[in-house]
């Protein structure tokens, strides 16, 4: 051969090909293979008499597109290799897992204690995250349409009918704009049955299709408020259908009575759907179009529609900021139609996940706080396991030394040890998840029924599962990395000779101190919460709730128009005459039960540019006798009387602070103010009452005004009775009384005022409960950790103890020697913990009522408690050491 054909298959430099002698080079191999093919073809052709250039061209023609084929083959090879690598590493991982499992089986106590520690930490974290997930992250359950947003007025307020109609007609960013409002309503299964009080959700047009809510059975409805015929149909909620109709599918088409109107059941909503608003649970869904029909009295949609919580489905391609921009433009246009009402009003869209904007900020802060606290529990658990692993590593020094001597690489050894840690974390996480799964179903059961939580409310979903899986990996690294590195970095020669002293002591005491510090913090925080609750219960709210029973009387439930003033007055007078009742009154918002109303007062004759410049004032609507019933002293003037009726001059009783703020230099009695706006009705002050708490116990006094019931048009009041009788007998008496006065009224709830008031401190109490549980867990874990470290250190010093005993040390001395070490570590940790707790106290004293930044009792009590626990945990191993026989102790290796 005169000329060796050398077909350039790749542009790679030639020397690269030698790389394959060092490691397999797939690319170069492929090039060689293809080059062999082309060169063979060229040689064969040249043998047949072809010229080189022609032969080469023919060879390439026969072969086809070289670079395309090359890349195809490369892709095939790469895919294969990737698959191969994956299965190899999976095999290796499974092999390591098996190895780790064998190791753990040989030492079951260690395996159980370690994975239980992690399980406790993971269970607490997963439980809290499940709740956070529900409250902040989960989209509307059972709503299959996307993308959804909530729409609010002024940051977090609901919308009225006028705004809904306006945006629905004009906003192009929304494909659907739907609202929901919930109210109690009177329900009768047949027109002759006894009335019951249930919750109805009034929903606007497009609610079910807009949210993509499916029906369990039957059909949903979609009634337009203006053009639609007010078809009297309703849908049942799944839970109500199950509870009240035992899931009977023949309810479809049946007629029931709502308010006092017959309505037809069209369908039952899907099980997962409760409401467009998290936390609401309604029994029936009713088209808003028929609300005037049900609750009657010739009112129009405008009279009802002031409290719709809105959800919108964004139009295709519209982003939330587009919707916000459009809302701004449309609000300006709306303000031009009614500037007095909409001048300072804003509208915005907001995330549809989790709780309403109203509570979001509070819940977010609380969530971050609780998650931080519960993460510390997991840290303590990790420190425990790390400690156990360090001890185990020390005990396995020989095994590891032999492995290293046999040539197992340190990286491989670390992988083996980390796999063992992973196995512990995985076992713990699985168990922890299972416990959390149960716990989140128990929490709704112990929560007060008013919270309306069903068993699956906090149920974990895929997000929680991912969270737990992430915890598993994080904990593996947290507790496994340090011991694995330490074990794998051991000195082979030293270990095998037996004179390698694993220098783990300092690490272990650092871990112990760290645990103690966190434990102090985790016990101090719930103590502060408990103190706050105690302070709130001790504080004088300015009235006397003990001995008062509340009865909600909602005349809207009658379903027909009545002279509400006459009915209320009748009820109050009859109730005052009930046996045991010393005084009775009606009030619109019972103080400290979570409801309140605000307005603005503008003193007569004072120039104020806008109503927003007048002080925001709490207001309440009360009947005569309210101040006497709650024992709120009147400082000046008089209580309302029956003469302060609709036609009479408008009058008010104001709070002490109101009097001082509005008329600082003057007697408030006889003064007048405009109600609500500068052109609002003039109201004369006839009385001044002592300040009383309204929203939170112990709050700083705010301006408050009381208006007489007879001059307002409220239909929903609470009858308050000061009585010596118990709640049950009051309930019977009041129900009898109401049946006489208003036979179509469903029997209302009757509860002690103090019970109702516990709602205000419910969040604090719930937080305290959780934090207390974390503190308990922390203490348990820390005690286990201290016990473990003490046992280990005693075991390591057996020989030393034996020698000392042989040399004549008394048991007391030996005991002191062993205890000293633990005491030193624990007290160092406790000191740091107290500093942490001080910082936490400074923060919490700003938000918690009645808590000082420095609570000496707590700051001394908690470390003392931990000290006692640490002593007990150390004592058993220490006594064991002191009692041991010097001879055997000295012989011990």
């Amino acid at each position, binding site marked *: *051969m005169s000329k060796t054909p050398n077909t350039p298959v790749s542009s790679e430099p030639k020397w690269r090909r030698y790389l394959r002698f060092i490691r397999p080079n797939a690319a170069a191999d492929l090039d060689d293979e293809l080059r062999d093919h082309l060169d063979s073809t060229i040689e064969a052709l040249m043998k047949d008499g072809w010229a080189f250039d022609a032969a080469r061209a023919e060879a390439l023609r026969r072969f086809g597109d070289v670079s395309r084929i090359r890349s195809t083959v490369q892709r095939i090879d790469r895919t294969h290799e990737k698959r191969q690598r994956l299965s190899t590493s999976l095999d290796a991982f499974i092999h390591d897992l098996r190895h780790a499992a064998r190791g753990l089986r040989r030492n079951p106590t260690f395996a159980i204690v370690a994975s239980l520690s992690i399980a406790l930490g993971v269970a607490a974290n997963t439980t809290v995250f499940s709740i956070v997930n529900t409250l902040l992250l989960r989209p509307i359950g059972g709503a299959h349409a996307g993308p959804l947003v909530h729409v609010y007025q002024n940051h977090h307020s609901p919308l009225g009918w006028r705004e809904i109609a306006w945006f629905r007609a004009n906003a192009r960013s929304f494909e659907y704009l739907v609202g929901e409002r919930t109210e109690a309503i009177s329900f009768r299964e047949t027109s002759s049955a006894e009335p019951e009080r249930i919750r109805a959700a009034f929903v606007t047009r497009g609610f079910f299709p807009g949210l993509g809510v499916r029906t369990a059975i039957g059909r949903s409805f979609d009634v337009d408020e203006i053009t639609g015929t007010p078809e009297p149909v309703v849908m049942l909620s799944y839970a109500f259908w199950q509870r009240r109709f035992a899931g009977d599918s023949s309810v479809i088409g049946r007629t029931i009575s709502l308010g006092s109107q017959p309505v037809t059941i069209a369908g039952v909503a899907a099980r997962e759907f409760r409401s467009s608003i998290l936390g609401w649970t309604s029994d029936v869904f009713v088209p808003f179009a028929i609300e005037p029909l049900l609750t009657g009295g010739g009112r129009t949609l405008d009279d009802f529609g002031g409290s719709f919580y809105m959800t919108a489905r964004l139009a295709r391609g519209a982003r939330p900021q587009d919707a916000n921009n459009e809302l701004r433009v449309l609000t300006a246009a709306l303000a031009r139609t009614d500037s007095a009402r909409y001048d300072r009003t804003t509208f915005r869209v907001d995330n549809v996940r989790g709780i309403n904007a109203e509570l979001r900020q509070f819940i977010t802060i609380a969530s971050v706080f609780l998650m931080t606290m519960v993460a510390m529990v997991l840290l303590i658990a990790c420190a425990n396991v790390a400690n156990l692993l360090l001890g185990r590593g020390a005990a396995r020094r020989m095994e590891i030394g032999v492995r290293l001597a046999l040539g197992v690489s340190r990286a491989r050894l670390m992988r083996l040890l980390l796999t063992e840690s992973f196995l512990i974390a995985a076992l713990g996480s699985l168990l922890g998840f299972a416990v959390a799964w149960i716990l989140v179903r128990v929490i709704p059961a112990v929560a007060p029924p008013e919270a309306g939580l069903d068993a699956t409310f906090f149920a974990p979903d895929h997000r929680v599962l991912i969270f737990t899986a992430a915890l598993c990996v994080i904990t593996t690294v947290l507790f496994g990395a340090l011991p694995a590195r330490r074990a794998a970095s051991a000195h082979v020669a030293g270990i095998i000779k037996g004179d390698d002293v694993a220098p783990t002591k300092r690490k272990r005491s650092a871990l112990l101190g760290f645990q103690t510090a966190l434990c102090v913090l985790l016990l101090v925080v719930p103590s502060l919460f408990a103190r706050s609750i105690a302070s709130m219960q001790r504080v004088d709210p300015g009235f006397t709730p003990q001995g008062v029973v509340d009865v909600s009387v909602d005349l809207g439930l009658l379903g027909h128009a009545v002279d509400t003033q006459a009915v209320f007055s009748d009820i109050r007078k009859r109730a005052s005459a009930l046996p045991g009742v010393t005084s009775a009154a009606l009030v619109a918002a019972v103080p400290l039960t979570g409801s309140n109303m605000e307005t603005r007062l503008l003193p007569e004759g004072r120039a104020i540019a806008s109503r927003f410049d007048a002080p925001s004032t709490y207001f309440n609507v009360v009947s005569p006798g309210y101040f006497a019933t709650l024992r709120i002293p009147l400082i000046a003037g008089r209580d309302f009387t029956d003469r302060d009726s609709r036609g009479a001059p408008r009058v008010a009783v104001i709070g002490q602070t109101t009097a001082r703020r509005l008329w600082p230099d003057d007697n408030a009695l006889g003064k007048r103010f405009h109600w609500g706006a500068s052109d609002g009705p003039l109201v004369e002050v006839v009385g001044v009452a002592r300040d009383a708490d309204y929203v939170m116990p112990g709050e700083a006094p705010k301006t408050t005004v009381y208006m007489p019931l007879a001059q307002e048009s409220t239909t929903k009041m609470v009858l308050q009775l000061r009585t010596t009788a118990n709640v049950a007998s009051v309930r019977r008496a009041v129900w009898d009384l109401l049946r006489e006065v208003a036979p179509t009224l469903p029997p209302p709830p009757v509860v002690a005022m103090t019970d109702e008031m516990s709602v205000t401190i419910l969040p604090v109490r719930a937080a305290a409960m959780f934090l207390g549980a974390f503190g308990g867990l922390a203490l348990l874990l820390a005690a286990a950790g201290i016990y473990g470290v003490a046992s280990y250190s005693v075991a390591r010093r057996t020989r030393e103890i034996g020698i000392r005993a042989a040399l004549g040390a008394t048991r007391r001395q030996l005991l002191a020697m062993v205890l000293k070490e633990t005491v030193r570590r624990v007290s160092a940790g406790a000191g740091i913990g107290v500093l942490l707790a001080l910082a936490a106290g400074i923060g919490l004293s700003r938000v918690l009522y009645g808590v000082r930044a420095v609570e000496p009792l707590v700051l001394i009590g908690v470390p003392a408690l931990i000290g006692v626990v640490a002593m007990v945990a150390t004592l058993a191993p220490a006594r064991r050491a002191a009692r041991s026989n010097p001879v055997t102790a000295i012989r011990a290796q």
Partner: protein
Amino acid sequence: MADRDVDLIQGTLNVLILKTLSWGPMNGYAVAHWVRQTTLGDIELEEGALYPALHRMEHRGWISAEWGLSENNRRAKFYRLTPAGRKMLRERARSWERLVTAVGRVLNAETREIAPVAS
């Protein structure tokens, strides 16, 4: 091109390669040469197309490969049929023959013997 066509062509190519390799180990060039010779040029094979097929079958374990030297002392990759490949060849050959017979029967039919389905 529809996937079905690729499958058919690839399947056919696989059978050809397996059959060729049943005569003994050879490199890609030899496979191509042998196919060209045997079919008397009736199958116009794009020779490069052999290689994806060869590599794929190697990954599947139907053929194995080893490096050797070609006639001109070039590094060359020789493929050899594995027992799995031999089994595959038997199966594929059988189904190929069935297909050919069936298609042939249809194409050679002279009368429409089957009664039309009543409408």
